[in-house]
């Protein structure tokens, strides 16, 4: 038998053994759900009860923070709208219904005020020119 054939025969005869067969089977079982006969059924190390509880607590905390931040943002917006509305004269705002209507009325009144102020300025300017001449 030549050297090559001898080598191949030796390789075929020698069957090295996996160092950690049970651990490998357990890892496969963990990822496929196929639990081998010689591995006791139970929670896998990475999915222990403690880790599950910790994950649940983290989830609840994150949800609570989200709800709180949303509530705060809503309250701030509401306060800003209320402040704007409260600056309106009571007599006019009393006729309005709802915050949106209040805001709309406020904007219109503000525009009228600005236009009136502009007219007053122009009148004053004309008066000043007439006085000069």
């Amino acid at each position, binding site marked *: 038998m030549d050297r090559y054939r001898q080598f191949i025969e030796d390789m075929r005869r020698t069957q090295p053994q996996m160092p950690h067969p049970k651990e*490998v089977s357990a890892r496969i079982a963990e990822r496929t759900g196929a639990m081998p006969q010689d591995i006791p059924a139970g929670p896998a190390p990475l999915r222990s009860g403690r880790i599950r509880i910790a994950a649940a607590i983290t989830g609840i905390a994150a949800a609570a923070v989200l709800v709180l931040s949303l509530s705060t943002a809503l309250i701030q917006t509401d306060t800003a709208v209320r402040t704007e509305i409260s600056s309106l004269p009571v007599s006019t705002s009393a006729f309005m219904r709802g915050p949106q209507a209040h805001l709309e009325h406020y904007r219109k009144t503000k525009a009228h005020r600005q236009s009136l102020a502009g007219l007053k300025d122009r009148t004053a300017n004309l008066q000043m020119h007439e006085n000069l001449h």
Partner: protein
Amino acid sequence: MSIQETIQAAAAGDHRAFAAIVEQYRQMVWRVALRMLGDPDEAEDAVQETFLRAWKTLPGYDRRYSPATWLGTIAARLCCDLLRKRSAHRKFEADASWANAQERAADPESGSIARELEARLLRVTRTLSPMQRTVFILHEIERLPFEEIRKATGWSPVQLKSNLYLARQKVRRALEKEF
């Protein structure tokens, strides 16, 4: 229950049946992975990946192939991908890790013989391409049928034959150089 029936049961979702397949073929798959990669730890990871792929592709398992060819080919293809990803400077220098792994094995005496032979295999197959290594290990060492390997890999007969021929030539030359 025959192995074909076990595979059928596993394909139908029977986890116990799949566990039995893992038990029966894990050593063979590990041997293929070890001889492909030359690293026992990497080979263990490859065994896991092989059985995960097998689990996913069980419904499409072709009964014409033996489970050994089916699993051996999955392992070899996976190892081929790993070998291609390896950086060019990394060579098969796994003797140290192989030695450590065998020291932890149950039978140190048989472990030392196996270690010596595996180290020799790594030396003489160093220059083989991933494809040559695949066909050499599956057919020449594991004695899996040529035709089944061809069908399972999807490679053409010419590709397989030429790669096997080249692999044999390279190993012969390497063995001659040893002495």
